């Protein structure tokens, strides 16, 4: 069981949250300007690192807000949470 710190509500059990995958993937400002490969990279490709991972979580059964978490994908240790600004594609430490 992970203990996840919501920046607004504090530490809560993992079951209160839903997972949103890799953080910092901004929707391209001008999708029409992208080629197929760039669009595929935005849509499907993920860095999927073994180690430190910046990821999105939603406090689904609490304040229902999105935020970011930095977590190690091998030890699962969480090193901190951060708020997002300008939508889930942007981040703020």
């Amino acid at each position, binding site marked *: 069981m*992970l203990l996840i710190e919501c920046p607004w509500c504090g530490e809560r059990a993992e*079951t209160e949250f839903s*997972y949103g995958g890799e953080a910092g993937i901004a929707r391209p400002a001008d999708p029409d300007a992208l080629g197929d490969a760039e669009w595929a990279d935005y849509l*499907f490709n993920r860095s*999927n690192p*073994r180690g430190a991972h910046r990821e999105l979580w939603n406090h689904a059964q609490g304040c229902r807000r999105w935020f970011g978490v930095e977590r190690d*994908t091998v030890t*699962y240790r969480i090193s901190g949470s951060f708020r997002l600004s300008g939508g889930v594609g942007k981040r703020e430490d």
Partner: protein
Amino acid sequence: MKKYSAFSLVRNAISHNRRWREAWRSPEPRPEYDAIIVGGGGHGLATAYYLAKEHGVRNVAVLEKGWIGGGNTGRNTTIVRSNYLWTEASLLYEHSMKLWEGLSQDLNYNVMFSQRGVYNLGHTLQDMRDIERRVNANRLNGIDAEVVSAEQIRKDIPFINTSPDARYPILGASLQRRAGVARHDAVAWGFARAADKLGVDIIEQCEVTAINRDGGTVTGVETTRGTIRSPKVGVVVAGNASVLAAMAGLRLPIESHPLQALVSEPLKPVIDTVIMSNAVHGYISQSDKGELVIGAGIDAYNGYGQRGSFPTIEHTMQAIIELFPVLSRVRMLRQWGGIVDVCPDACPIISKTPVGGLYFNCGWGTGGFKATPGSGWVFAHTIAQDRPHELNAPFDLERFTTGALIDEHGAAAVAH
């Protein structure tokens, strides 16, 4: 290498089982091979076996960072079936099924393939429509499939809860009678032994740390046991696919997740088939030792830790007890996790890459075990011929750029 037979059993019994030979050698890596397979799981060993057997490429090394079959091959719930919806997927899995049917003879190793049937339960009217559609699609592709009624399920599996008052009432199921289970460790050992016999070097405790390239072409790998040169490198490392891809400067449409499974204390025979439920989301069979083998869905978060969270186990047990209230007091003996490489369309990538001589076989996600022989067979073809076989051509890495996805998420017999 001695052939295993009833006669060899008797002979070794007479000599008090002291003269059994090792099943495969443990050679030192040579400086150069015609092909290197990274990953000594079932898929990697099968690839090496079929490279040697079907394509005459025998100067092959299989590099495994741990021990043979210690990853997902030894961590799955051993279910084998081929009842996928889309033609591309069902033909690939059915090819694998045909190989399973002759595998013990082919390898001279008993993989204990048991075609005890797989039921995929339907709990809603829409489930049943989807089941009928999938059964018809399977039959059109020459794959055995039938729709069974709740009444039939009650006869076949007497202690499943078929009460109409259940929270998720069972309305029927699809049944593939040729599906079943196999002994997962034996699959790794059998392929390892058979590949070794054909000259393949199986090198354990040998982790790949870099993929060497010259221009846009692969030249070999750096490992914890030195540099090994090869013009062809096939990577089949399941959960670590993205890590190996990054070594070659590639990004994959894959995320790694823990998938957990459990076994119960051994019971007398109670389940003589495999039962899966999409809506309640659990699956169960019984091993020859009597343990109930239980699995369900992945942990939602990315992970490489070969373990997951307790709430996922709880969810799994809830599903099993919903279907089988009679099992509510059975104790679980062991629980573990494997790291599965989940692809956006729940279908594998068996493909050439932008790097010449570098091939990837990954993205099997939660359902790779059933495909072990077929996956190795088509990957061996792809590596030997430097082009995909028609069975795996649709499973190209390019499909994420062209948009020709094969959407088995939810379409296949179980949600991934």
